[in-house]
């Protein structure tokens, strides 16, 4: 007995040493074997494909079972608020989407699918959308769902301008109740993003919204029609929901769904290994190798909607008065100097995609462009042509998280090849937001390392706020201060179109212009990496690899 204790202590010591030496390259079933050195970055690109291929095989082969019928999802960030009309970030939406539903939704391929509305049609002028609602649906508080409840949400938005609901309904003229189960939404003018926005228009029970402190009530109770009902929440800790027993269509198999906040990356991985968590999100790119060989864990890789870029302030002047980024050749030189394939490998271990347009390909109306293949000679000659053969000094604003700084350092290294000396200005994101929202007269932005994702998967939302000429800060985040009349016009025209071929054509032209003019250095777009136990079944997805738990189940003992 004493011997065994000694051995296990010795093993513990040895393991601690080996973990420290190689950054912990191991997974549970390999305990005892000597840990292999961390794989070089190059090989992980191939791993991304291999991981995907082994998914089905793993699920088949695994006999692991869950100990209970309660699913735990370990997530990095907590929701800010559970009132779906108050919250504004992805972490909040991920949770509220399980309790609240919309008239329509998107599937993983960005196709519109019915939800609370079973059919919809648009008027010829594109200004009125009529929805036929599903019947017999009840809210969590027992109230019936009908056309009146759709109107009530609209009215809540009108009454309180501080709600994020505001931006969904700002283009609406009116909501008309045609009959108990038919409702028409009228727009001020045609708007092609309407359908996208309606997938963010979360329907809440009118009774709950009519309460004096509706937001307080909704922070502690759910009043939607979704597959899960809020059970308990500890701010910063976890949010637990139980199955909605009166759900109106095929619902989940699990008894409960808990989102647990686990900010530390390594702790999320550990929780999945021990089975304390059934699903974790996100898996940090550097930790994939820790779990990819575990036969009880499946890794899910999907292109995310997040797109990364560096804005080049076209109005920024050097001390001698020259404006380097106002010259297209300099901007193009930056893009030719930048090796986006290497960026994906070095910064994201291969779990990112080189850019082929100005937003992610999981967004509607994406149109592929010819990549700026890394070509230093070409970049140098462009710099020379533009009169910057000796380069110049420039500063880049970046958030002070590890991965952001790593990315900006990569940009710095790449641009040094053509004589551009980039100085990093890392700061906290809230402080950066203040700098980057300053108007042209007072802006200090020269370059900004940043990313963007449209919450409603729309092309307009992926471009307007960050590239349209009217969206110079503080009206938006066009910190390139790039103003291209033709591009602006295409966006404005497309917004009012209803024919999808015409819309696609306009957006394709707009993408081509921005790609050619390149007010940014195009970096690439992230992959969403989720990991879950083989016994998790019935996961559904939204565009960008976002998980939906409506039919989730657990193969349990």
């Amino acid at each position, binding site marked *: 007995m004493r011997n065994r204790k000694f051995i296990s202590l010795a093993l513990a010591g040895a393991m601690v040493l080996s973990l420290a030496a190689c950054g912990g390259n191991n997974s549970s079933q390999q305990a005892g074997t000597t840990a292999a050195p961390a794989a070089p970055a190059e090989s992980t690109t191939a791993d991304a494909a291999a991981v995907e291929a082994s998914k089905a095989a793993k699920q088949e082969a695994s006999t692991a079972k869950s100990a209970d019928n309660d699913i735990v999802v370990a997530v990095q960030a907590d929701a800010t608020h559970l009132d779906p009309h108050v919250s504004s970030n992805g972490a909040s939406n991920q949770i509220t989407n399980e309790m609240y539903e919309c008239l329509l939704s998107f599937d993983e391929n960005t196709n519109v699918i019915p939800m609370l509305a079973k059919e919809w049609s648009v008027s010829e002028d594109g200004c009125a959308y009529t929805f036929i609602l599903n019947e017999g649906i009840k809210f969590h508080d027992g109230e019936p769902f009908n056309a009146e409840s759709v109107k009530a949400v609209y009215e809540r938005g009108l009454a309180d301008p501080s709600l994020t609901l505001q931006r969904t309904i700002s283009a609406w003229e009116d909501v008309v109740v045609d009959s108990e189960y038919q409702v028409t939404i009228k727009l001020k003018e045609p708007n092609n993003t309407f359908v996208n926005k309606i997938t963010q228009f979360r329907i809440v029970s009118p009774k709950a919204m009519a309460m004096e402190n509706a937001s307080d009530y909704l*922070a502690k109770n759910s009043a939607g029609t979704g597959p899960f009902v809020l059970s308990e929440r500890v701010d910063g800790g976890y949010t637990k929901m139980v199955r909605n027993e009166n759900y109106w269509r095929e619902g989940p198999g699990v008894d409960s769904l808990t989102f647990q906040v686990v900010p530390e990356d390594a702790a999320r991985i550990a929780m999945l290994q021990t089975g304390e968590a059934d699903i974790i999100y996100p898996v940090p790119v550097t930790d994939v190798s820790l779990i990819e060989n575990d036969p009880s864990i499946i890794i899910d890789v999907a292109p995310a909607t997040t797109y990364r870029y560096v804005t080049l302030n076209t109005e920024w002047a050097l001390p001698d008065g020259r404006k380097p980024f106002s010259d297209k050749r300099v901007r193009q030189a930056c893009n030719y100097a930048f090796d986006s394939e290497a960026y994906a490998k070095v910064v994201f271990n291969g779990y990112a995609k080189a850019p082929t347009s100005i937003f992610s390909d999981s967004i509607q109306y994406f149109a592929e462009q010819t990549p700026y293949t890394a070509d230093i000679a070409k970049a140098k000659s462009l710099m020379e042509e533009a009169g910057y053969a000796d380069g110049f000094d420039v500063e880049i604003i970046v958030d002070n998280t590890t991965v952001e700084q790593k990315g900006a350092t990569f940009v710095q290294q790449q641009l040094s090849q053509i004589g551009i000396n980039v100085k990093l200005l890392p700061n906290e994101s809230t402080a950066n937001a203040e700098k980057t929202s300053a108007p042209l007269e007072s802006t200090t932005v020269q370059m900004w390392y940043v990313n963007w994702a449209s919450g409603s998967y729309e092309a307009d939302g992926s471009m307007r706020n960050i590239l349209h000429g009217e969206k110079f800060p503080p009206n938006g985040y066009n910190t390139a201060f790039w103003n291209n009349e033709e591009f602006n016009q295409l966006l404005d025209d497309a917004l009012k179109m209803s024919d999808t071929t015409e819309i696609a054509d306009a957006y394709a032209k707009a993408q081509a212009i921005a790609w050619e003019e390149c007010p940014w250095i195009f970096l690439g777009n992230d992959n969403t990496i989720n990991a879950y136990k083989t016994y998790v079944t019935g996961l559904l997805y939204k565009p960008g690899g976002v998980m939906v738990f409506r039919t989730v189940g657990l193969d349990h003992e």
Partner: protein
Amino acid sequence: MGRYIARRLLETIPLMFVISIFVFMFIHLLPGDPARTLAGVEATPEEIEAVREEFGLNDPLIVQYVDYIVGLFHGDMGRSLKSNIPVSELIWSRFQFTIQLVFAGLIWAPFLGIFIGVMCAIKRGTWADLGGMLLAICGLSAPGFWLGLMGIQFFSVKLGALPSAGLDSWKSLVLPSLVMGTGIMATLARYSRSSMLETLREDYVRTARAKGQKESIVMFRHAFKNSLIQVVTILGLQIGGLLSGSVITETIFSIPGMGRLLVDSIAYRDYPAIQGLLMIFALQYVLINLVVDVLYGVINPKIRFD
């Protein structure tokens, strides 16, 4: 002594008032706009303005400060900008987690630390002394996050013996307790050793020995008790630090304590929450200092309160 405590407590009021001014000023000096963060990146300037108006962020600073102080006197610390939960409720819910961690750390660390320190002092210059101090130095040098992650890897992932996250049962307190306590144990070991060594050189210890007192009585009654004064001071400071929450322990073990709340609140520029937390932390320190001062008198009745 009762009068002394009452006077000290009364002194706390103007002190807290001064602290509140500093806290308020520093928070508003931070760059960054809570309304912008709350409204999200896709918000229009009008939406941001509406949020700013809703939370009274457009009022002059002096008005905001007076509102805050008036609220405090009515027992109202305001509402969190981020979660809209009353700050007092928010802090109370987080306090319950932090206090569990504090107890988990205090249940063993001070005792072991003092024991090691005293033993090292008594056995000064021997292998036991060297071993004890080596342990203390290791404890001081091992970063909390490293200890925590190693603990999780070994006890949770490999052995499956302890949970790696949350605070559901006594088992889930074991690893956080290890991380919280190690630093305290090590610090106290070093302080109590040097304090004990100093005391052992005092005249009254020599006198006691000369009188022929038993060595154990010399050590315990004469030396150890007097050496505690310094140790209690250090322990007080350590507890104050623990009560302000340990961001690292809370982050690694996914515990929603006060340390993480502070960090999250700063990231969101959640002014009421930051103010509330800093005021509570200040109050905790003031009270702990009072307890420490009172303990001086208990340990050494020669220290008078007047």
